[in-house]
């Protein structure tokens, strides 16, 4: 079972929403499509579901064209896909069990009911079958929506910001349960989210989208450790960004000199805030830069320190462990972790 996009482009009026988008999701794979709001990720999902008529390109389900240019266009009801909506879209006039059985055909017999019931059991909704959606909490509604989408054994699963309506405590638990169930079902999963942490956590592969185009598709570790460009690096965590001209193979920044690939005229240096180390001014390290703390505060798991580099206007932000950061005014030394420092030729 696979879902494939081939050079898909889509626009609303003269506003382009998706441009030359190609991506394949394999059997049992979870791909998270992530990007800032308005980047076109929801359009991709709607095109896959058939809720939007394809304009250019091809969408294949199990190798057969579900939509191709403006010719073939399977209506959503013929695609055999499962879609979980951001607002769950439960049918308010149907009970939980009727919602789950909706996609199981007209004559939902005992067999269907058993399947629906076991799905509900699996999601911890055993006693909820006869209740109506309005009597359920957000988390319960979310799980009913998931059960409803999974019930007809869809060939592919699409999820549109499925967890964004839940509060943080609930979100972690529901997310883990949902992931386990989706993995078990084994169909390709395409999940759209604007939350980078969620994407990293759920995905086998993360697909980062910006202004209608894919920027990078890779495993969460690769996306974080080897981002394709400054946008991807910044999207998955707070960063410092410095740009400068390359002279003699290196670029000069307020926090030191960095070696650039040969043949680049100028480069941008991106250092994760968590990759900036703050040491006492007196510590003897080779590549340290002298700075003065401007603002510092503890935010619980770590502390945020803004320091101004001596002899420069530039300010550097560091996320350091512990909750006793150096006080404002204190002189410190800054150094950078090479694994969290990225140099992008410009």
């Amino acid at each position, binding site marked *: 079972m696979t879902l494939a996009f081939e050079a898909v482009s889509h626009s609303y009026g003269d506003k382009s929403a998706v441009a030359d988008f190609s991506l394949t999701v394999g059997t049992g794979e979870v791909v998270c499509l992530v990007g800032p709001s308005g980047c076109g990720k929801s359009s991709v999902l*709607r095109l896959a*579901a*058939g*809720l939007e008529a394809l304009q250019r390109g091809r969408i294949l*389900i199990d190798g*057969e*064209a*579900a939509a*191709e240019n403006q010719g*073939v*266009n*399977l*209506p*959503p*009801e*013929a*695609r*055999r*896909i*499962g*879609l979980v*909506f*951001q*607002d769950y*879209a*439960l*049918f*308010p*006039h149907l009970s939980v069990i009727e919602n789950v059985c*909706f*996609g199981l*055909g007209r004559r939902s017999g005992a067999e269907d009911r058993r399947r629906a019931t076991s799905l509900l059991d699996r999601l911890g909704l055993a006693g909820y079958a006869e209740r109506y959606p309005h009597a359920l909490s957000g988390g319960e509604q979310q799980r009913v*929506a998931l059960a*409803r*989408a999974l019930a*007809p054994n869809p060939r592919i699963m699409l999820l549109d910001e499925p967890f964004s309506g839940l509060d943080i405590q609930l979100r972690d638990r529901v997310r883990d349960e949902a992931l386990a169930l989706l993995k078990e079902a084994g169909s390709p999963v395409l999940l759209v989210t604007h939350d980078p942490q969620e994407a990293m956590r759920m995905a086998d592969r993360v697909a980062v989208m910006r202004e209608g185009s894919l920027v990078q598709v890779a495993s969460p570790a690769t996306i974080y450790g080897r981002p394709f460009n400054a946008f991807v690096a910044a999207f998955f965590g707070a960063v410092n960004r410095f740009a400068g001209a390359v002279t003699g193979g290196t670029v000069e920044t307020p926090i030191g000199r960095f070696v650039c690939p040969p043949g680049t005229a100028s480069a941008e240096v991106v250092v994760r805030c968590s990759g900036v180390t703050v040491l006492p001014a007196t510590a003897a390290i080779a590549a340290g830069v002298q700075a003065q703390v401007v603002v510092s505060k503890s935010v619980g798991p770590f502390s945020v320190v803004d320091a101004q580099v001596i002899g420069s206007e530039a300010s550097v932000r560091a996320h350091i462990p512990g909750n006793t950061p150096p006080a404002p005014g204190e002189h410190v030394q800054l150094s950078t972790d090479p694994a969290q420092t990225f140099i992008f030729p410009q």
Partner: protein
Amino acid sequence: MTLAALGARVSRAGSGRGWPLFAFIVAALVAVPVLVVLLSVFAPATEVWSHLVDTVLGRYLENTFWLVVGVGLSTLVTGTVTAWLVTTCRFPGRRIFEIALLLPLAVPSYAIAFTYAGLFDFAGPVQSGLRELFGWSRQDYWFPPIHSTFGAFLVMGLVLYPYVYLLARAAFLEQSVCVLEASRVLGRSAWQSFVQVALPLARPAIVTGVALALMEALSDFGAVDFLAVDTFTTGIFRTWFGLGDPQSAAQLSAMLLAVVFVILALERYSRGQAKYFHTTTRYRPLPGYQLNGWRRVLAILACALPVTFGFLLPGGQLLVWAIRTAPQMVDASFVRLAWNSVALAAVAAAVAVAIATTLAYAARLRPSRPMTLSTRLASIGYAVPGSVLAVGVLVPFAWVDNRIDDWAREVLGISTGLILSGTLFALIFAYVVRFLAVSFNTAEAGLAKVTPSIDGAARTLGAGPRETLRRVHVPMIGGSLITAGLLVFVDVMKELPATLIMRPFNFNTLAVRAYELAHDERLADSASAVLAIVLVGIVPVYLLSRAIAGARPGSSS
């Protein structure tokens, strides 16, 4: 079969051209009567027409003009003042008046005309009482004649002001208290705030209300006919039946339609001029000005007068008459009349709701410019007066009948007579055209509350568009559809001119019978039928009052 082939098939069968096609056909059918009437302008004038121009046309225009001015002013003042009082002032009985001010909506204009004529003409209890009290005879005093243009717009204003009241009230309620408070802080008094801020903000709504009242007044036939005020509607009726000239009747209809379109255009223009947006979304209930002393008395009077003269007085008179005459009047034939009215209204309501729901769903499924245009066109009937519509339906139906008859005589050697015109089918067709807008707006508003992802969920779970409509939308918006049906039902029950012109031979309804009795000066005898219609008319008032209670912004619902 490959999936792709299957898909092509499904898309032809399910979500293909069927839906837009349905919308276009409905729009075309609704447009036919209007087009027939408008195109009659290009037909050569008959002798009857030049006779009409020489004798009565001037009077029609003059009476129509005064009717528009009179009803316009009286509904404007009554509706706006009462709406302002109940939304922003606090005085005893306010809650009751809020609902009671809608009651005159239940009284058809012909009903109030009958009762007022009975009460206030020369032989009525009022004038007789005055004569007895002061020992006057006919020459000794002057009493405003009820059988006059003045009488006509007076009684119509009394039952039509609720249109203005409803819309103005909604507009005043929507106004955030912040805007009014800003005006007060900037140094305006409460009265100045009303005139300079609240009233201008509510103007588009008020104009729409007046336009609706005027359209009702222009389409009225029963009241003006009974009060002997010659207008276009009575002229159309007389030209059709009295002079037997459908073409001139159609030309008169075209002139009336032109007047209606002018009013619609003015309404559009007024709305287009001033598109106000509420700058704040923070809603706090209006605090309400506590009225005391003479102001309180005035406010209660201002609200009580329209209710008394628009509902209690005519309703009471009808009740008195009905109690007196019901023993003779309510018999087997009355029951048959009632059944005719109810059956006709029920069928028309069911058809209108079915078409409106399909149309609204088609527009949701395939939004496009031609689709929007089609639904607009399909809703045009509400602006077409009943008598105009009757002419617009009968003329083409008769044409089709004659063609069929010609063909049958030529080919089969038999005469088929009239198949379409003069049948209940034609009548129901006219009702649906006239009241489709009522049901369409209600169905559309119901569908708008169903989020698009509900559609998406049903579709991705394997239900086609038709199945989705049946299994998801119809059950979800059932309440709205019942409301839509009730509104059409009541409107059909009240409808007089189209029924009068189009009913099959020897077929009668409550409204027609009431008209006939009143026409024969048997006002008291007509009361049972009229009262039945008024009672049915209270249903939409009840629905509206519930909607008002439920939709009060800021209230927990």
